[in-house]
């Protein structure tokens, strides 16, 4: 059969990507961690290079700060520009476009971080993620974002780099201790939520593939699950766009709703982070919610530390939920081939996808933790707090803050509401039922069943 060129033919073969985005996130993140460990063990620090706006009250104070640190921002921005553009180029993206866009993202992020460092902003509990999302959303929905800027709006890429860097702030024993609890909690919530969304969807006569994508998106890892399951079950394009719209919509609502609900119940940051990890859908959206919630603890509004919110979130979401995506995809692929479409030609269950689809940045997260644990091994707690924390970990954490801000800004700036697909009522209802079940189950597991673990995490 001849396929019409103008309608059905794909474009010229893409220039081959050397490695997936996840591996670049691992390499960039670990390069930073290794550089920080090396300089620290040599008696110096990356702290000059990794700079963040400090708290300020008035313009003269801010001016003095930028006059003092201007060169540091310039060097930091130039290095990040080269690193991220290089990775983008090796992923077959247009380097020139990416570089132009990244400069804008870096400068906008500097403005966002400066606004969130203003003491009056802090009094209003306007955290960096909310400001970044708002700035991005306003831009995306009021002006036309040029193509070159769109190239550098890579929310997932930046958040993966940030996750690897976050691993360096979490000692390996904490991961080993809380990991099994995180996996148990996440598995219970994921399996129950998946079954609820899928069965409600089927009850409402949704196509099996759409029901499976919605179920995966609501229970495992948001759009990453949608795209993985779509590929595994041979989904229709229109169904993928429906699932995408619903997952994105609910994820954005949860960024605001989850911190507010957790704060209303005065959950500690560790418990709140675990709940967000159980009930938010996408990694980047969840980090926005968890970082926002952690910020509430800065002035003692809730118990715990800001870091605890991020740590418990990461353990439940990334370790507990994300890393099983390959197994879910293989399982659904098996069901699709043997039950849904047994007569398909050339179809077989590809077990290799369990590894192929594995989110490799999780390995970077664990390895970064291992490196820092090794570097700090044998150091007394007092000495660690006085030397290693400011000289070894603080620079990594500052760069993690930048990566997260790039991601939150990219989320907002990529979300053009008018471009999203229209959503069918049944698909929305099926997903929303799962949202309610997941929220309830996540709360019970985080704040009741495993509360003591999450309250005391890494203390």
């Amino acid at each position: 059969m001849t396929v019409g060129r103008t309608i059905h033919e794909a474009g010229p073969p893409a220039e081959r990507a050397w490695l997936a985005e996840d591996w670049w996130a691992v390499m960039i993140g670990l390069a930073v961690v290794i550089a920080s460990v090396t300089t620290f063990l040599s008696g110096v620090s990356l702290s000059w290079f990794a700079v963040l706006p400090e708290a300020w009250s008035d313009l003269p104070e801010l001016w003095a700060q930028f006059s003092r640190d201007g060169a540091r921002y310039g060097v930091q921005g130039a290095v990040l520009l080269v690193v991220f553009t290089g990775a983008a180029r090796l992923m077959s993206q247009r380097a020139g476009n990416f570089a132009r866009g990244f400069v804008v993202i870096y400068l906008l992020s500097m403005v966002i971080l400066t606004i969130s460092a203003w003491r009056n902003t802090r009094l209003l509990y306007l955290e960096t993620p909310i400001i970044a999302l708002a700035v991005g959303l306003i831009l995306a929905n009021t002006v036309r974002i040029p193509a070159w800027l769109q190239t550098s709006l890579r929310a997932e890429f930046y958040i993966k780099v940030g996750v690897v860097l976050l691993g360096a702030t979490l000692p390996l024993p904490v991961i080993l201790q809380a990991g099994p609890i995180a996996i148990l909690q996440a598995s219970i919530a994921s399996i129950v939520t998946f079954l609820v969304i899928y069965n409600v969807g089927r009850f409402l006569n949704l196509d099996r593939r759409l029901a499976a994508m919605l179920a995966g998106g609501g229970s495992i890892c948001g759009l990453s699950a949608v795209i993985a399951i779509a590929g595994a079950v041979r989904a229709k394009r229109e169904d993928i766009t429906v699932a995408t719209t619903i997952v994105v919509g609910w994820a954005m609502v949860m960024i605001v709703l989850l911190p507010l609900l957790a704060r209303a119940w005065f959950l500690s940051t560790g418990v709140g982070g675990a709940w967000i990890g159980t009930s938010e859908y996408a990694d980047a959206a969840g980090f926005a919610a968890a970082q926002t919630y952690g910020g509430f603890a800065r002035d003692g509004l809730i118990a715990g530390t800001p870091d605890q919110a991020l740590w418990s979130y990461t353990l439940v979401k990334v370790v507990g939920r994300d890393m099983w995506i390959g197994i879910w995809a293989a399982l659904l692929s098996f069901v699709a081939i043997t039950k849904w479409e047994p007569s398909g030609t050339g179809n077989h269950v590809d077990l290799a996808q369990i590894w192929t689809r594995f989110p490799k940045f999780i390995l970077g997260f664990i390895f970064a933790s291992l490196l820092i644990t090794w570097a700090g091994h044998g150091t007394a707690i007092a000495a660690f707090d006085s030397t290693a924390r400011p000289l070894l970990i603080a620079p990594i954490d500052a760069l993690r803050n930048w990566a997260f801000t790039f991601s939150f800004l990219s989320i907002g700036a990529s979300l053009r509401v008018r471009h999203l697909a229209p959503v069918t009522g049944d698909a929305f209802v099926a997903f929303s039922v799962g949202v309610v079940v997941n929220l309830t189950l996540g709360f019970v597991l985080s704040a009741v069943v495993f509360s003591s673990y999450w309250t005391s995490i890494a203390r």
Partner: protein
Amino acid sequence: MTRRFASGVRPGGNTCGTCRSFEADPQRIEAMLPGLTVLGSAYASVAADDGMCLRHDTYHSRRLSCADFAPVEA
């Protein structure tokens, strides 16, 4: 080794990966699926070697095959 064009696809075999209707470029896939880049990525590991069949409008592995296979022109 490439991510998109590797592992198990026979060169010249009648699989989707060598079909003219199959789109495997992550950038083009993201353009076809509005909203994907907000919280996801076609460049991610989870996307594996999947792509879009422009003939059937379905998203799947490049290793599948079907009766409508048409090779990419040289």
